[in-house]
């Protein structure tokens, strides 16, 4: 093939690929293939030494002409793309995006997820129990004897056939321990029910998360350390925590836990009723009577349990002052989360 024929062929090839280039990116590729540092034209220039010396000058000229022509064609094609792009700008891109429906998670189940994920990081497994419970699991196994005033702490719905709606998630403790040997390290989320008149401050159902840890050498100091860590992870590292003695039949000693108000940082505000503190959960060392019920060796094993009310924590966080709002399911409320 003569050099002329070669150049012609290259020109034809170039025209073809140029035509097929559909966007500037492909054009860039074409430019590289033909005019790049290692492109076809550069290749020809590097072979110029093989041409007889008398024609070198002429061939050089032809190659330069070829290079110029290809460059020119490329520029033209670039310009074409530019104008095509401009044409597109004539669409009114200020029109709003299509309205895609926004969905949302209920703040209660979100809070449960948030809390559970913290407890999972702390090595707790998740356990479950039924909402319709037996008196034995809900009360007796948890050291609430029949006709004990402690039962007044939890007004109960009874169901036909002798069952009841669990008043707390604590029966999951005994249910779980009954079929597992220690160590036991669980949290149990779920709905619980109280037969109390519905008002801004109380609803007939709410959500709790129960925690339980039984092993050798588990002390109240472990409980404090764990709860403090949980509170820091949930409320932030500056939160302050206060334990005070309380009473639950299934823990001994028992305590209530207050955290410094996250809104006013303990200075006193509407949310904390000017006390600077918010009551968030009850806890304690599992009462030996409970361990005995499920035949754990009380001399060998100790452990702690805690229970927190999800609604309270969500209401405090979101500034909701009427618990019924959480169960109304007004879509204008739900869509906020």
């Amino acid at each position: 093939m003569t050099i002329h024929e070669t150049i012609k062929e290259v020109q034809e090839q170039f025209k073809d690929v140029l035509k097929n280039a559909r966007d500037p990116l492909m054009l860039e590729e074409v430019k590289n293939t033909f005019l790049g540092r290692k492109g076809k034209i550069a290749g020809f220039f590097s072979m110029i030494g093989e041409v007889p010396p008398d024609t070198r000058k002429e061939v050089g000229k032809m190659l330069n002409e070829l290079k110029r022509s290809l460059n020119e064609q490329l520029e033209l094609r670039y310009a074409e793309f530019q104008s095509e792009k401009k044409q597109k700008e004539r669409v009114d891109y200020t029109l709003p995006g299509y309205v895609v429906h926004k969905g949302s998670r209920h703040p209660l189940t979100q809070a449960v997820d948030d809390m559970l994920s913290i407890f999972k990081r702390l090595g707790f497994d998740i356990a479950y129990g039924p909402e319709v419970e037996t008196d034995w699991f809900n009360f007796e196994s948890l050291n609430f004897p029949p006709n004990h005033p402690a039962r007044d702490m939890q007004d109960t719905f009874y169901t036909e056939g002798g069952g009841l709606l669990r008043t707390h998630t604590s029966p999951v403790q005994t249910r779980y321990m009954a079929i597992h040997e220690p160590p036991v390290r669980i949290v149990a989320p779920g709905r619980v029910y109280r037969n109390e008149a519905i008002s801004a401050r109380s609803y007939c159902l709410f959500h709790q998360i129960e925690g339980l840890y039984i092993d050798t050498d588990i002390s109240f100091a472990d409980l404090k350390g764990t709860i403090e860590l949980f509170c820091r992870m949930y409320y932030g590292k500056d939160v302050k925590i206060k334990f005070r003695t309380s009473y639950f039949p299934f823990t001994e000693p028992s305590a209530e836990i207050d955290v410094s108000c996250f809104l006013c940082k303990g200075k006193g505000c509407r949310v904390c009723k000017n006390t600077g503190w918010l009551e968030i959960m009850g806890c304690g060392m599992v009462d030996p009577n409970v361990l005995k019920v499920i035949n754990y060796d009380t001399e060998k094993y100790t452990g702690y349990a805690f229970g927190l009310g999800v609604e309270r924590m969500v209401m405090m966080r979101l500034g909701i002052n009427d618990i019924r709002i959480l169960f109304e399911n007004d879509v204008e409320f739900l869509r906020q989360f």
Partner: protein
Amino acid sequence: MIVSIDWLKEYIDIDMPLEDLAEKLTVAGLECVVKEIGKSIPKGVVIGHVLEKKRHPSAEKLSVCTIDIGTGNPATIVCGAPNVEAGQRVPVATVGTQLTPDFTISKTKLRGVESNGMICAEDELNLGDDHTGIIVLSDDHEIGKSYNDYFSSSLVLDIDVTANRPDAMCHWGVAREISAITEKPFKKASIKLIEDGPEVDSIAKVQIDALDGCPRYTARVIQGIRIAPSPAWLKNRIESIGLRSINNVVDASNYVLMETGHPLHTFDFDKLKGHKIKVRFAQEGEKFETLDHKERELSSDMLLICDTKAPLALAGIMGGIESEVDDNTVNILIESAYFTPAVIRKGSKLEQISTDASKRFERGTDPNETLVYAQNRLAALIVELAGGSIAKGMIDIYPEPLETKIISLRYDYVKRVTGVDISPENCKSIFSHLEFTMISEDEDSLTVEVPTFRPDIEREIDLVEEVLRVNNIDKIPSMKKLTMSVAEECDKFHPFLTDIRNFFAGHGMHEAVNNSLVSKNIGDAGIWGYTPLNVLNPLSKEMDVLRTDMIQPLLITLRNNALKKRTNIRLFELANVIEKNDHVDTHAVEHFNLGVLCCSPLWGLNWTEEDKPADLFYMKGVLDHFLGNLNFNYKLKENTNRDEFEILYDIVIRKSIVGKIGKYVDGYFEKLQLQYPVVVMELQIGKLFNWYNPKQQYIPTPQFPSIFRDISLVMDKKSKAVTILNEINQHGGKYLVDLVLYDVYIDDTKLDKNKKALSFRLEFRSKTKTLKDEDVDNVMNKLFERLMNQYGAQLR
């Protein structure tokens, strides 16, 4: 419970700020706040002097009074009270005074006579229940002065006593706590008892026929007392804790109760038939009228105090009318007894009466020292206040004295439970201030006798709590190195649910949380046809069963939203539904289900799309996506049992119905004037979770290109899309990998009016080679031939 600071100081020195004291008591387990209590009578109520009283010209029962209210300008007030007289000092609510949130005194005309205020009776000022006449005050009340100035206020602790601490329900108990916390001594008053009456056994008898309900009963008799108002000191004490002073005997009895925590009862001795007390259980259906004037029909669980003829009192709960001490009483019998807590609680629950006495008895009072102290204290106090002479001796029936508890506390156990070392000296000091008796001690432990006023202390762990709480539970250092026992199981259910929640939220739906308690007709209407489980003591008729499906509660939510004119209602919820089942112990089987409801446009209102509803096809698409993600193959089977549905399908997986999907008849919600159809879906998530097997291995991606074929078929309008789709899927050959129905064409002008055209796109692909046209042409021809022969399909 209210305790007065002033009163507490009789037993313990308090030398710290009250707020600090409240804080310390709270941390130790007596949650309390400092309060100031007193009568709060509105400012506009002033002392008035009745200058003149005239008959009302046109109303016999009304009088027209001219009253000096200290303004120099006497007010004319029309009064209906029978006891108003000229010369009296009376409380007058002046014009503009707000007596209750919805009652403000204004200038008014009563039967034609102008009245500028109101002379008040007890009940109108919230001072008592009396409305028989106006309050008449003594002459030392200064005219024009605010009536409220005559009431003193007192500082109190308002304590929320937990159910395990009956000992703390009195001033003694709180003082004892303060003593333990501050290490200051706790002092009790000594009693001077002069028994100068006849031998008590010669004038009164006690018989217990129900020892299991009443293990101990003591009685004293005092003769020749005189009922009178209480002296100022007692009246102050009683009023300082928010009680009403009644007379010297009743007040003294309340005083001793609030001092020692032991409830006492006084009977008019002369009203006791046979001068004999008999303690027995009631006969079923026996009738008795209590002090609150209620005639009660009793059950045999109810313990009674009787005389030889009739019941006198519901033991430990409330007295009766017949034996009540009244203004003419001269001889009394004092009861100080111990009743079994469970018996009192049962009775109090049955009769729905909760009194200061029942609250203490049901939690457990002290049958030993405190019981006797309270008896003697009251007897001495009554003689001091009302005169009379105490009969010699105390009747005391206590055949089986309660055994005291002796418990050891090992110091290493304290360490094991609390995680900290607490010194033996510290422990000993705490128990001594809490009035535990030290029995013995050695290097490793101590042994104490538990005072009988502490029924909550039964075991070593209870002693640990005493040590911990008095030491300030908040000061226990928290463990910095947490242990984490390795559990064998690892829950997958909760993450599964979180994924589902995020899936539906991602599909533009809002998560709802509905009440599980619904009305019976809602429960009966459940989509699964379960029998609802009844709640025996519902809050209301609206909540007397547990929900049997997810859809009905979502319909209520839809309704509530529609009534608020909300549009775009797309909801889902995950929760248990309850099926009544008599074969399980709780009579309930719980199914964890998902409910979905849409009444919404498919898209939000857009500038490019027409307003299409999110209809059944939308819901089917969501279902497809959802079950596809979980790798479930499913079938829909039409369910024709429900009239309210235009279409309802059972969702079938592994031959088992796991869900429902359907669209309600448009008119079903006529009253709500909904803009969009109501489509719903319910799935048994618990069941799906049990079957769910997350995909373990990937499928290699296709290496060879696909060939597409579109086919448009004209066929009978009645033929079902699903039939044709199944047919093509079954006979599409081994290379068919996807099939999409992309057009449905109905046009009576262009097609026969009994015909419709369906267009399908078929995708063919091989795993091993690039397909050529002839590889699929054959299949397409056969397929078309088949559809032509079986369904009369023709190419369009």
